[in-house]
């Protein structure tokens, strides 16, 4: 198992390298003159040219790529923002917690509310509990996040004055963004859990367990859940990675200084190093999350754990080690 984890960690290096080269190349070819963005329309052609020269934008592609790869992989430096000169690494580190909070709480909500909702729906398939749960799920998936967020702000901030409308500062500031961000996740997880549990609930071993007189609770926790959670875990893992990259709308709406907002602003202002740094960081996060998902598989499903351990045993047998 540990070897598997180590192998996956080592595989991350070429993956991150490939991502770095791809994103660098894309940004290199994206049209748009950053000198004009920085200086505006009230500058001479000489001023634009001088700024481009100072920013190193006139260097050939391979020179720029090699310099960037050297900085990232040897010095762990994502460079400086071409717009305001701040360290991209520092900016990402300072913004990472805000996005992590949003993504993590969204996943927690999905687990805490989405999975039980899906289980209830599956257990009462075709009845009012199923219909109600799926209606809630449909609402969650259908409502755009920015609309839901604004409605919550209008109600709880503007009319009731219960909660602040924007920003971060106290834990009350996080309530509306977390609910806005998490509601869609609850809906998606509920639907995924329902369909996954429905597949398992009719299985022979569940029927056998019932026939043996096992309590419904034990059937659920020992037989149904472990076998139905694999797709849900996969979905949550992918969702977490997407959340880290995609809470842009929520961050902009609630003025949360997260990575999504930083990346979008950087793209608009052709801040090459900021965009590249953001994408690389997200690639690293995604890779780590997928690794964690695979580890969780092993703990949920003993067959997968045995598969990992079986591969190790096979290698030891082949090499003559007992």
């Amino acid at each position, binding site marked *: 198992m540990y070897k598997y984890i180590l192998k996956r960690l080592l595989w991350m290096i070429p993956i991150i390298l490939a991502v770095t080269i791809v994103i660098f190349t894309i940004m290199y070819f994206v*049209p*748009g*003159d950053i000198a*004009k*963005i*920085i*200086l*505006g*329309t*009230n*500058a*001479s*052609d*000489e*001023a634009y040219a*001088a*700024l481009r020269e*100072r920013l190193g934008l006139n260097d050939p592609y391979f020179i720029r790529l090699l310099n960037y790869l050297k900085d990232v992989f040897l010095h762990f430096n994502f460079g400086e*923002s071409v*717009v*305001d*000169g*701040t360290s991209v690494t520092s*900016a990402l580190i*300072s*913004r990472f917690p*805000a996005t992590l909070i949003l993504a993590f709480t969204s996943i927690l909500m999905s687990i805490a509310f989405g999975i039980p909702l899906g289980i209830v729906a599956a257990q009462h398939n075709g009845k009012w509990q199923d219909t109600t749960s799926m209606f809630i799920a449909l609402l969650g998936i259908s409502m755009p996040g920015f609309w839901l967020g*604004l409605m919550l*702000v*209008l109600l*709880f*901030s*503007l009319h*009731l*004055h*219960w*909660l*602040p*409308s*924007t*920003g*971060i*500062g*106290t834990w*009350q*500031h996080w*309530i509306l963004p977390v609910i806005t961000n998490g509601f869609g996740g609850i809906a998606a997880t509920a639907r995924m859990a329902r369909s996954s549990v429905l597949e398992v609930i009719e299985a022979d071993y569940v029927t056998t367990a019932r026939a043996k007189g096992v309590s419904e609770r034990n059937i659920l926790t020992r037989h149904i859940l472990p076998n139905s959670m694999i797709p849900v875990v996969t979905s949550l893992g992918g969702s977490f990675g997407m959340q880290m990259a995609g809470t842009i709308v929520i961050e*902009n*709406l*609630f*003025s*949360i*200084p*997260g990575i999504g*907002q*930083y990346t979008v*602003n950087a793209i*608009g*202002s*052709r801040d090459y190093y900021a965009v590249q740094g953001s994408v690389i960081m997200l690639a690293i996060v995604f890779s780590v999350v997928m690794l964690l998902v695979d580890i969780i598989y092993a703990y949920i499903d003993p067959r997968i754990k045995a598969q990992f351990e079986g591969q190790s045993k096979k290698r030891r047998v082949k090499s003559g080690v007992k």
Partner: protein
Amino acid sequence: MMKKVFALILAAALCLSFGACNSQTDSTGNGGTPDAGRASEVVVGIAADPGTLDPFVASNTGNIATYQTVYEHLLYINGMGGEPQPSIAKSYELESESNGQWVWAFEINEGVKDADGNTYTANDVKWYVDTIKPLGVDANMEYIDEIEVVDDTHFKMHLNASQIGLVELLASSIKGVVRETYEKYGNEFAKNPVTTAHYQVSKYTTGSEIVAEKRDDYWGENVNKALQAKANVDKITFKIITDATQMDIALQNNEVDMIPSVASADLFDFLNEDDLSVKDGFFADDYLRGATLIMFFNNSENNAFANEDLRKACAYAVDTGAIVQNVLGGQGTALCTVGSECFGDFQMDWYDDEYYGRNGVNLDKAKELLTSSGFDTSQEIRIITETDNTIVRVAQIVDSYLRELGLNPKIESYEAALYEEMCADPDAWDIFIGYRGAGDYLANMWRWTFDQEIRDGFTANFVHDEELQGYLKACLDPNSHTPEDMTKFKNLLNDKCYAYGIFAQKMYVLGSKKVTEFVFAENWSIVPGACSYNF
């Protein structure tokens, strides 16, 4: 079953307790009422994070809003086209002018100190200019050849140009930063700058807020007479709110005390329906935005719009007054040339002159000119714009007017970075619609748009006209910057119709009932510390 019911009750109680918790919504109201020993505070909503508070970066939306508080300048300019206000600099005058060199002599106030107690001298001015020039982040610095230090409180600014308002523009961008202090703090300076200003940054949370507090040891108390140097509040918090709707809600909710610029379209939450007066509990001031919306015709050699009759035909077909009503709800002015009355050197009698479709479409005249141009009306006309809601709406109305004329327009919208690239390509467009504006003088706005020396003999829309260039030079020279010269340029520009002015938008600054007067520096950037309050 009982366990489930109990769990539900607990969950409901948790939700209710979240809602009943006292939040930050009251903080500005309570904090802003000074009792004995309690500091006064104002919260300003700003739309973007400056990213850094370093003095050697280019202007952006975030730092324009905050730098007037965080930094002092050699002098200030009141609003747009207003009088220069000496600040760190006590006085300045033109000392000599010869062989393409203008020398301005400045005197700095004695005893200018930053919050660390270090004295600001002429050497710091020289250091500032020498540092920022090679960075290329302030295009105007290229006009300074040298800062010559005479002594601690005197220096000479050697300029290689003399456009009207140039020295004031430069002096209002030179910040009060002492070299010794800047070098002492290094990278930390960008987060908590230590400056000569009346306010010092005490906290900067990236992407969230910037807090500045009044200094008790400010050097300029009773010395610095600039309006913008006053400090009428103890603490200013700049709260970053990126969404425009949320900004309005924050003001209504008392989470912020002022919003520096609100487009007219978002105003109606704060105005009474019947008479459009400001609702009780709010305070408003308005100004005409310096950046005006212009329709530029592509005058490059191979483009159809190199034909004067075609340009005029389009101008007669577009009713800019109707655009102001439809797009801005009447909160703006239809232009009578390229540029608006917000500039000090604009002449109000220009409004008396006929200006194409300003007062209504003249379709007969437009069709007559279209016919005489010989333009093939089946040919597509590419109109490019930025992806700005207002500009796109204007483009759609222009599109419909041109179709009524019998033309075949097509709108292409691009995001800002790509838009600038497209505008610079003579083969990429026929008409572009965009904002243009600069500084405090109309002549300077014309310069950045129509000065052919800046772009290898052509204007921003590829005009090459030596007569126009000659008139422009006369407008820019402080010695010949007369109403007559301005009118000559305006008349030629209008006659040739190289570009067609659409509108200048009215912008509003909104405040809570706490605010009684707004104070502005150049380009209508608000100075919260100097505003008047009723706590």
